[in-house]
């Protein structure tokens, strides 16, 4: 391996991009964990659902071949706006995010209402098992009702919705438009969420609920509303990550959520689960570590390196990087 600065930089950018995706998904885990102390195992499937809904939205709004099929002609004028140059493309992606975020957000709220709320006072492992059940259900629903195949994240004619080729080269380092888009969007969303939670009234209610649910209830916080909100925001961010994942890597499949799900959960734990900034930090850290491990060590052991980092962090800081040193509640 010939070491060069540009190689290191390019791998780091790969890592930051991957980290941005992890961070977006990790926020969903951490939000729910912070409030309910449960691992929402189905979150990775909501990420997958986000990928599918986003693909559907992109096809309806940005694929002329779809508008040409019978009964879909009314889409043509809408599409002509979205396909009209840079502004149109940006609007197209934004529309896919919004649609996917809203649909999947409501899926999250729905799942919480029917699968988790009845278990709020059940033994500790019950919600976890229920979540695994939801996860198996969603995966098989996608397999049966959408497709068992890996679907390309592109128009019917095979072209990408967003030109994903290398955008420019700085000092020998290739950066693609997609990478910039992912990094910028994830940072902006993280900042917005952070402000929302720390500055607004409902954000304060969320923090209160995560500190002590009963006490918050006594103080007049509508706990169910707060929980539902967490189950909307988390999956919505996960869905956006799902759309990005599809556009960046090029496909969706019914079992695609599994590996990013585990990694993002790992990221949330590294950062200190329950802590929003921790999830972001953990996500970026894990992404960079993985990318560098793959680039300098061996692609085969990237996951091993990721999990070793997790173990090391937890041994030296049992509460995660930004988590408080937690004493078991007595």
């Amino acid at each position, binding site marked *: 391996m010939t070491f060069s600065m540009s190689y290191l930089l390019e791998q780091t950018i790969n890592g930051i991009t991957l980290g941005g995706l992890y961070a977006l998904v990790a926020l969903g885990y951490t939000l729910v964990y912070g409030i309910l102390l449960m691992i929402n195992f189905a979150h990775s499937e909501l990420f997958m659902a986000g990928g599918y809904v986003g693909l559907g939205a992109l096809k309806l709004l940005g694929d002329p071949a779809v508008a040409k099929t019978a009964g879909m002609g009314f889409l043509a004028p809408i599409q002509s706006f979205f396909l009209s140059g840079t502004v149109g493309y940006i609007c197209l992606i934004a529309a896919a995010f919004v649609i996917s975020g809203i649909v999947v957000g409501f899926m999250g709220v729905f799942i919480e209402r029917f699968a988790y709320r009845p278990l709020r006072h059940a033994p500790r492992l019950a919600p976890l098992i229920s979540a695994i059940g939801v996860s198996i259900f969603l995966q098989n629903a996608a397999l049966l009702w959408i497709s*068992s195949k*890996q679907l390309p994240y592109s128009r019917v004619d095979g072209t990408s919705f967003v030109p994903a080729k*290398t955008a420019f080269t700085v000092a020998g380092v290739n950066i693609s438009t997609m990478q910039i888009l992912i990094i910028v969007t994830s940072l902006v969303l993280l900042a917005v969420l952070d402000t929302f939670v720390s500055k607004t009234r409902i954000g304060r209610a969320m923090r209160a609920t995560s500190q002590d649910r009963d006490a918050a209830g006594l103080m007049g916080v509508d706990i169910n509303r707060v929980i539902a909100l967490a189950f909307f925001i988390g999956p919505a961010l996960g869905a956006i990550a799902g759309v990005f994942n599809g556009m960046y*890597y*090029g*496909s969706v499949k019914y079992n695609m959520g599994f590996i990013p799900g585990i990694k993002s959960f790992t990221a949330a734990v590294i950062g200190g689960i329950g802590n929003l900034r921790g999830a972001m930090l953990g996500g970026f850290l894990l992404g960079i570590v993985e*990318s560098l491990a*793959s680039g300098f060590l061996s*692609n085969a052991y990237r996951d091993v390196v990721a999990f070793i980092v997790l173990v090391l962090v937890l041994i030296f800081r049992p509460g995660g990087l930004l988590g408080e040193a937690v004493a078991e509640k007595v």
Partner: protein
Amino acid sequence: MGMRKIRTYVSLIAVLAAVALVVTGCGGTTGTTDGGAKAVTVTIGIGAPISDGAVALGKGMVRGANLAVKQANESAEIKDLGIVLQTVEGDDKGDPTTGGNVATQFTSNPSLVGVMGHLNSGVTRVAVKIYNQGNVLQVSPANTAVDLTQMGMKNYFRVCTIDSVQGPAAADYAFKVAGKKVAFVVDDSTPYGTGLADEWAKQFEANGGKVAGREKTGDKDTDFKALVTAIKSKGVDIVYYGGIYNSGALLSKQMKEGGLAVPLMGGDGIFDGEFIKLAGAANAAGDLCTSIGLPTAEMPKGQEFIAAFKAEYPGEEIAAYDAYSYDAANVIIKAIIAVAKEMGADKVTTTEGKKAIIAAVPSTDFEGVSGKVSFDANGDTTNKAITVYAVGADGTWAPAAK
């Protein structure tokens, strides 16, 4: 409390016993045939990944075998013998443990004499021993692991060539015809991908080429960005991928998008239209793959097969193993016919009949869709032709220029 618990247990046991009885009762009757027609039902198992794994290839196997059986049932030869052939699908999901269960189920089926399958070499490793115990013939259209025919299993045959033929042929093409000198070799950590990539790398180096690096990925991986950056830094002119189309296509796509404009070459696992769809025709253009045998359309029986396929499965594409599965099923059917002629149709599904069917296969010799079908002493096909395909500008696989 105690009483209630005992009652629960007793009822549970009663239910289990009832289920066992019902099931046993059913089992007794399946062996007999319908009295009216007096035809003997002979079953052929299709072992393939249907719900998980390389599903597109697995479904192709089901199509090919079913087509062969349907044609056989319509032939006068089978009708005169008083045999009705039927198929039963066993979904092995590409997983050895599931494959072992499927193999036991096949073996338990009294009317089942042969299995057309499996796709994955790892599945066969477990299944073939079970078939061997149960005197069931196995003909695989797709196993390429070299050692499978060296395990001393007399009931095992395959109609496809193996890694040690396919890998080197591909490496020869890459070095001698395409003029590639520096390669990076990637596999998907499955037995299939690893075996093929190892054989390719060995031959490429023997030819004088340089293997600049060797990496492993997972067969469900989608993120190859860091790998692509690493490959790019090595200055290679070809990437060899041992694996299946799902991940292979994404590697090709991410290579081209990441500024690594060299062809990706793979084995028969990426020889599917899905590869081009997933990678995008523009990215896949110039990618190479090898497949066993000669192009179906150029074979003497090829056009006939394509016509029959289009009639039976309108709107579906022929995948990599449809033709091989058709040939593999025909190997079983021809052995059944030979035994039925010799011993009588009613003896086909007995233990002696099953043993006779296995014994009849080595003398197989017919013109199949993939070429001449006959076996050597180990059960490997004598047809060792390999064809190189390339993705053309029109976005389809076409035989590459020699």
